[in-house]
């Protein structure tokens, strides 16, 4: 599903963000990517989402290689990989339903199927009763559920979540984590970046990869 092979990423000003990192995430796995801020978690997520290219090494995601994929073909990767952010990145001034429908519309879903599918996705994240509400009027937890519904719009193989609970209180965090587990239980791989070690410990059945100053220092699957 995801395979990083000797990946390094050097920025002109910030210097070395990732240093010879190699790991894999297989089908149906749930993996936490942990580390202090500045350890390279977000850079890793951006490389997996093909928003950036590695300076050296190779990133393979759902069959696409960073060495071969062009800007023109990025959309193919994006439809296989859902992405959830800490700050939700929803379109303000639009309803929860419209935000999910937007993702379906711009990726070419047949017009007649858009609203029923968006409603099904909101049902899946438990937010159908709030479908008509402007996203700005929703709580943080509810906004993140909309973002997850949007990420699932194209039936991805893999869900990337970059600090998805960073802005949420404990109760909302628990709800979102339960949702991720449900999604994972249906067979979708989940890679979640977080610096919250408490959260990681409370989900002991998930694999853990730890980064420190751009280097991979721990992979629970390898001991």
């Amino acid at each position, binding site marked *: 599903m995801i395979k990083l092979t000797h990946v390094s990423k050097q920025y002109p000003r910030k210097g070395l963000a990732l240093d010879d990192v190699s790991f894999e995430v297989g089908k149906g796995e749930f993996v936490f990517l942990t580390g202090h801020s500045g350890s390279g978690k977000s850079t890793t997520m951006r490389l997996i989402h093909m928003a950036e290219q590695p300076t050296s090494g190779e990133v393979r995601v759902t069959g696409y290689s960073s060495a071969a994929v062009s800007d*023109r073909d*990025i959309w193919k990767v*994006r439809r296989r990989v859902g992405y959830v952010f800490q700050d939700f*990145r929803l*379109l303000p001034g639009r309803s929860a339903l419209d935000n999910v429908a937007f993702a379906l519309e*711009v*990726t070419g879903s047949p017009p007649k199927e858009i609203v029923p599918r968006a409603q099904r996705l909101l049902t899946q994240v438990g937010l159908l009763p709030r479908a008509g509400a402007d996203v700005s009027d929703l709580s943080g937890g509810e906004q993140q559920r909309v973002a997850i519904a949007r990420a699932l719009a*194209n039936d991805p193989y893999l869900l990337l979540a970059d600090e998805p609970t960073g802005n949420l209180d404990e109760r909302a965090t628990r709800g979102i984590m339960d949702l991720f587990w449900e999604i994972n239980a249906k067979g979708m791989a989940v890679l979640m970046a977080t610096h919250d070690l408490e959260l990681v410990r409370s989900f002991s059945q998930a694999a853990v990869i730890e980064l420190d100053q751009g280097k991979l220092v721990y992979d629970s699957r390898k001991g």
Partner: protein
Amino acid sequence: MYAVREGFAAFRRAPVLTGLSSAMVGLALFVVGLFGLAAYNLQLALTAIEERVEVVLYLRDDTRQSEIDLAVEELGGLAEVQGVRYISKRDALAQAREQLPEFGELFSEGSVNPLPQSLEVELRPGAHTSEAVRRVVETGTIYPFVEDIQYGQDWVDKLFVIRRIGAVSAAIMGGAFALVAALIIGTALRIAIFARREEIYVMRLVGATNWFIRRPFLLEGALAGMLGGLLAWLLTYLAYRAVYTWLFAIAWIPIAWVGIGLASGTLFGAVASGLSIRRHLREV
């Protein structure tokens, strides 16, 4: 469908911005239109003058009729020549009397006719270039009985210089203002893109194709360009009416030119917005 809806939505969402960019494009293309109007009328005037260019071969008095006939036939056979007219000494005198009555005594009956006989060579339409004139003159100089050849050499050369200057400056000015129009649309589109950067970001995030993202902006740019083109057409026509009514009679530019102007406005709009969105997509 999405592209059409969003392309038109720009005019509803930011009518001042899109209206202003159309107006600016209209003004830039109006300058191109004025230049076109001037260039077209200059061309018409030059063509009218050029049509009057003809080559006159003055013949010696002792030229035999058979030699004249041969020259008429040979000159008439040249590709550039429309026709050759023989003017006898008597005809020349009659013409002079008619055109220059103040010299009536000089040309009075009974006195010696000082005017030479001549061959007036009329050029074909479109064959008034200096090269064509020179070919006719070169043929004329071969004949030993030709005393002198006049063809307004200075005029012919000057006309071609003026025509060339007109064409070059029209191309440069037209190109410069077209570039200005493209830059204006590009800048307006950059603002429109900035206003919708979150949408574009989400589109990229969820896997919309670049082409899908680009389409509404291309349409918006093309519409702004077309509206600008229509405005330029209207302004140019008003300027034409004003000059025609209050200054002097001029001709309206051919309809094909108007079509080209409108098409270029639309195309510039689409290209400028295409470049802007392309640049933006590389950044997100």
